[in-house]
């Protein structure tokens, strides 16, 4: 990767992290409504995959969607406004935290139904296959989500129709408060996907470069018309399942340990500064930038206009009758 690419990737990683840290604070002050799930800890997955994608490519996300949206290029200010429920938010306040979308960026929506994005992303890949377009479609699904049957339907169909589709499984070890070990009969999630008839690899999801490499392979394969792949990436969830989750099922020390050992950001920094391509100073400038951006996003969100009762009736049909 070039220096520019590295800086770009770092900027995104930091953006994803700071967006969640700020969201958490603002949630606690009561500014943000709804069930809010933070992506902190898992940033290298979204960024590692999406750095390969253009606005033409499509992704579908989960209930834990902020990171995917940002990685795919959604405007953080318009996203923050959506969290605030402003009419200037990306979905005009209709969607909120679990339903952020930006079709101009190929971000076809976060989705609050676990597993539901996988079949829909198959359709986005099918559209490319039918029209001859060169885009690929990526769905993100959690480890818990791999126990939803329609994910396997989606995998099988993508293989049968040889679609440009990438299944990214984000393995943070938890489905809400239940450990994956208690939920998956076979802990090897890649093996499950492989059995549906496609290449499937497991990577360390805290290692941006590992994710980026695996995603590159899968995406090129898809663009060459050779069909779908699965990438299982493991990375920790730094906060509770949703904001407000008291996390009685794991200790503070456990979480602190994850932060200390398995944080994708220090790992990225260590690696890129070790080669000398990038200095701590370069990164510091980015950090400051992002901090300013977040301040401004919060400020703008607070001041942003609120939707009105009339807005309720907009956007349900294009034309009714």
């Amino acid at each position, binding site marked *: 990767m070039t220096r520019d690419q590295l800086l770009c990737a770092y900027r995104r990683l930091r953006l994803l992290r700071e967006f969640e840290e700020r969201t958490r604070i603002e949630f606690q002050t009561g500014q943000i409504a709804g069930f809010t799930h933070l992506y902190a800890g898992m940033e290298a997955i979204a960024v590692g995959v999406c750095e390969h994608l253009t606005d033409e490519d*499509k992704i*579908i996300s989960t209930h834990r969607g902020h990171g995917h949206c940002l990685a795919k290029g959604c405007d953080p200010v318009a996203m923050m406004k959506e969290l605030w429920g402003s009419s200037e*938010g*990306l*979905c*005009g*306040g*209709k*969607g909120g935290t679990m*339903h952020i*979308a*930006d*079709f101009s960026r190929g971000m*076809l*929506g976060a*989705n609050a*139904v676990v597993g*539901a994005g*996988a*079949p*829909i*992303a*198959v*359709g*986005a*890949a*099918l*559209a*490319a*296959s*039918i*029209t001859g377009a060169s885009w690929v*479609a990526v769905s993100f699904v959690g480890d818990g989500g791999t126990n939803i*049957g*329609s994910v396997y*339907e*989606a995998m*099988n*169909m993508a293989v*049968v*129709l040889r679609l440009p589709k990438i299944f990214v499984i984000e393995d943070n070890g938890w489905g809400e408060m239940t450990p994956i070990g208690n939920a998956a009969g076979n802990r090897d999630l890649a093996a499950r996907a492989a059995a549906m008839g496609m290449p499937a690899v497991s990577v360390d999801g805290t290692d941006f470069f590992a994710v980026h490499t695996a995603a590159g392979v899968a995406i090129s394969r898809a663009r060459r018309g050779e069909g779908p792949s699965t990438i299982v990436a493991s990375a920790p969830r730094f906060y509770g399942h949703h904001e407000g989750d008291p996390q009685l099922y794991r200790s503070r020390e456990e979480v602190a340990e994850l932060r200390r050992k398995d944080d994708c950001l220090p790992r990225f920094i260590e690696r890129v500064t070790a080669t000398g391509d990038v200095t701590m100073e370069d990164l510091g400038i980015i950090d400051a930038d992002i901090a300013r951006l977040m301040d401004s996003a919060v400020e703008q969100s607070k001041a942003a206009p609120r939707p009105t009762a009339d807005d309720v009736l*907009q*956007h*349900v*049909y*294009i*034309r*009714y*009758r």
Partner: protein
Amino acid sequence: MTIKSMRDALNEALHHEFARDPRVFLIGEDVGGFEKDGQPVEIGGVFGVSKGLYRSYGRKRVIDSPISEAAIIGAASGAALCGLRPIAEIMFADLTAVCFDQIVNQIAKFRYMFGGQCACPVVIRMTTGGGRNAGAQHSQTFYPIFTSFPGLKVVVPSNAYDAKGLLITAIRDQDPVLFFEPKVLYTEKCEVPDEAYSIPFGEAAMPREGEDVTIVAFGQAVNWSIQAADELRQAHGIRCDVIDPRTPSPLDEETILESVAATGRLVVVDESPPRCGLTADIAALVADKAFRYLKAPIKAVTAPHTPVPQARELERAYLPNPRRIIAAVEEVLR
């Protein structure tokens, strides 16, 4: 203009739209065909509605899918979000239950919950209703269920002419449309023009007119109602408006309200069970907006509150019929 079955009329609609718009494609189980020893083998749908399409358009646009209804609907909706005009076939309306989330929580909501950013012009075709002794899991209507979901449009044709025109409208519509094909009507025939034509949504048909009683009916119940109305007229001189809304959603409220304003009496007929269905929906509309014209209780003729039984005698006793409609009309005239 020739006499055609509803099956052939629907088939023509598909051919017109495939030819007109390259964005149109069909996905479902057994809808297309396959290559065998280098030769195409055509299936054309279990009920034959898509015959000829595979031969003309090939497997890029006529896609035989695995038995994976959730993936079929997902594939259709995702493609629609990317600008295509998918038609998904679900073999029996009852089977929407295995992909219900993809329809009611996904397709129905996309446009709204994403703040109007996208359209999701999917057509989901499926067979509906009883009369074929298919039993409890293959004989339900499901159109009242989908009518209750904002974001979906719902169509139930009662004859071949309407079927063709409504399917063309559905495919051209920019919103999601659930298109219900009463399975007993596939072989029913009437005059159907050869060329493409479209019938607007939200405009009821009125196959019979009369000033005494309004009958509103859906799907195959329209035909039972017509029979009842004809018999009432001949045998007793009782004249009925028979209204076929054709699209439960959007509903043509005006035609119903105007009719009741003239007759003052309403019978609503549907083969679905009685609770929270379309008969209640129409009754509630009239009991609110045409109350001052009403001269008699509003009667519904429906199936009983049971699943659909399989045996011939049982299903016959279960489904509404002209005799029961006549009895209801006589009751509201009493």
